[in-house]
């Protein structure tokens, strides 16, 4: 079953979509870790539910809101939130503006969500990315995978 899905993903997304290339300039310091150190009290709730009532025209719009921490510790909660939003027909908005702490597990979930969108042909757009999230996306080279083709 998994193999079938993998194959269909490759066909649907195209190999150029699952193979992303990025160049990361040499950096002197490591801001992400510094941030983690400076802000040890990570907000427990990984996912902040949308507080604004959805406009009537956007009842079918999914809103993915990433919390301050998006790491392996919160991975199950983030995945559950992503799945709940994916159950809506879309299109989707992803808000990563609050992310202060992120790791590969967190990024991988977002990539999986984005690839699912691509397979289904449902558009998504980013409404915000924090500097930490942006840097992590750049370092892991997944930036091209997280942009829905125009």
């Amino acid at each position, binding site marked *: 079953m998994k193999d079938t899905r993998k194959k269909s993903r490759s066909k649907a997304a195209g190999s150029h979509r699952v193979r992303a290339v990025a160049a*990361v300039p040499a950096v002197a310091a*490591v801001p992400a870790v510094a941030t983690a150190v400076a802000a040890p009290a990570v907000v427990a709730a990984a996912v902040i539910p949308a507080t604004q009532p959805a406009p009537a025209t956007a009842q079918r719009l999914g809103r993915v809101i990433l919390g301050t921490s998006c790491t392996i510790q919160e991975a199950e909660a983030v995945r559950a939130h992503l799945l709940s939003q994916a159950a809506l027909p879309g299109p989707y908005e992803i808000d990563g503006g609050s992310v202060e702490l992120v790791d590969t597990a967190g990024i991988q979930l977002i990539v999986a969500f984005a690839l699912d969108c691509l397979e289904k042909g449902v558009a998504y757009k980013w409404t915000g990315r924090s500097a930490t999230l942006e840097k992590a996306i750049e370092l*892991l080279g997944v930036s091209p995978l997280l942009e829905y083709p125009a």
Partner: protein
Amino acid sequence: MTLDLTQFHEIFFEESFEALDSMEAALLKLSAGEVDAELINTIFRVAHSIKGGAATFAFNEVAGFTHVLETLLDQLRAGKRQVRPDIVDVLLRSGDAMRGMLSATQRKDAIDTAGVAKLRAELDRIMGESGTAAAPVAAASPAKTHAAPDAPAPTPGWRIRFVPGPDLLRHGNDPLRILRELSTLGHLKVSVDAGGIPPLTDLDPEVCRLRWNLEVEGEIERSAVHAVFEWAESECELTIERIGGEPSAPAVAAPSESAAPVAAAAAAPEAVPPKAEVAARNANPDGGSIRVSIEKIDELLNSVGELVITQSVLSQLAAPLEGREAGELRSALAQLERHMRALQESVMRVRMLPISFVFNRFPRLVRDLGQRLGKKIELKVTGDTTELDKTVLEKIGDPLVHLVRNSIDHGIEMPDVRLAAGKSEHGTISLHAYHKGGNVIVEVSDDGGGLRKDKILRKALERGLVTNDVELSEERILNLIFAPGFSTADVVSDVSGRGVGMDVVRRNINELGGHIQIFSTEGKGSTIRIRLPLTLAILDGQLARVGKEVYVVPIVSIVETIQVTRERVCAVASGGQVFRLRDDYLPIVRLHALFDIEPDHHDLLDGLLMIVEADGKRVGLFVDELMSQQQVVIKSLETNFKQVTGLAGATMLGDGRVALILDIPGVITRFQAPEERGVAKPQAA
């Protein structure tokens, strides 16, 4: 599923302490004016790895402090700031602070936040100064060096295929951290393969399905790239190859017979499975090791010891047999014995570590203490690859520290005094280790003022350690410094001079079955020579019989063995006896009386007197007869029974009998203080 990171704490601490040792060694080389980019890179990598690990485990104080330290190191690495002695000094103290923080965290104690804050302020102050570009370092800095645009050669760097294994994330290894570290080495090109990611419904978020093809450009050592993957290498598929192909002499080639396959693996990574890269590294002396707990090795050694005894029992049983089969049996047993010896030596070698583990602390000690006392001292170390049993190594550290401190404080003179004496203003302390006759010899020498025998003798007379009417040999006078509480220092300092130490040094050495000697020439310097056994697991012993019991006397303690003549024995008022040996009177210790057993002989003339020495004291041990000398496997009495004063352990003889191993200092203590013998009476069966 919640990931329990605490299971990795101990490994992190252990590796961090080792890394801090390397950092200190590199800093001391910097201190000596050896400014090179690789040294700074080594120091930076240590700080960087510890910071990453500490952040992973949420040791935030450690991570926070190390981040500041790392920032300064990065400035040095980039050539934005010049290496200066005061910066090296702060860096050394920062290393100490990190060690202290890690130790406290390991013990779950409070961290010295005030001390750390003070040091952090110093780091901030240095970073606040306007930097001075250091051309030599900057020019050589590999991470920042890029090929000239018009250079015909391909861009130097490394091509890396990184495929995380299923447990990588669960074990706290984050590819993001790895890529971030790689990006600090040089310009990083990242190509991700997300083809392995299943739909979100099927995705286990704790398993990394992303894979990377990476290129990191710059004049970067292969070891630096490997270091980034150090924590993850066993949990990923990793291929590292030089961009544009490997040079003819690959960086990982080991100077051993295995060099050829290693070179092949390194030069053509495509031709071998991805694991070959790891295997190639494992063939490298630095990477080819595994951590095994010392308990496991001891169990192995113990089992081998039992086998040696069993083999010895078999040999004894076969000895009286006759006939063709008996001959063949003995021949097979002789072969077994050879193999057993080889096995025993191999297992014992596993416990051996180079003495550099102890010597490595001295460059820092000599530097710091020399600076504090205003002395200019050079440390010379030779033979630091000499190997010793781990237990011996652990116990030799403190005595050596004491001896080196003494050399710095009392031995080496102040620069003006040295110049006035026609010497170089730089004093020299030498640490020298070598093998000799089945022992390891460690010498601590200095070219200082030497021991002043007249002063030692005067102090000894003042303290009543000797009397005026006895003429002492030079050796005996020098040995007075081992007397408890003895000190010739005019001023008591926190370095030395309280007279606490040399007696402890000698006792520690003796407890290891070792021996200490002093050689000194006034005005020219002193040498302390320590002879140590290679291992504490086996012992060269002289078997001595008393009644039906057999005792093992450590050969290292035996001075000589003599037959007693009546005219040399004198009774003393306390009821004991002394024996006149040349110009000395030695107490006679009757082993049978000491251990409450029935001897064959009560009359001194019928037995033998073994003259044994410990802690500078000599006694005559009266035994019935001497048997053979043999190497015995030591079994702990404490583990199997309880500690008994005068006994160092037990062993099993070839005929299956148990022989007790004498602890000569303990025998003397037991003899001198019979009321404190603490004789352990075995429980009745």
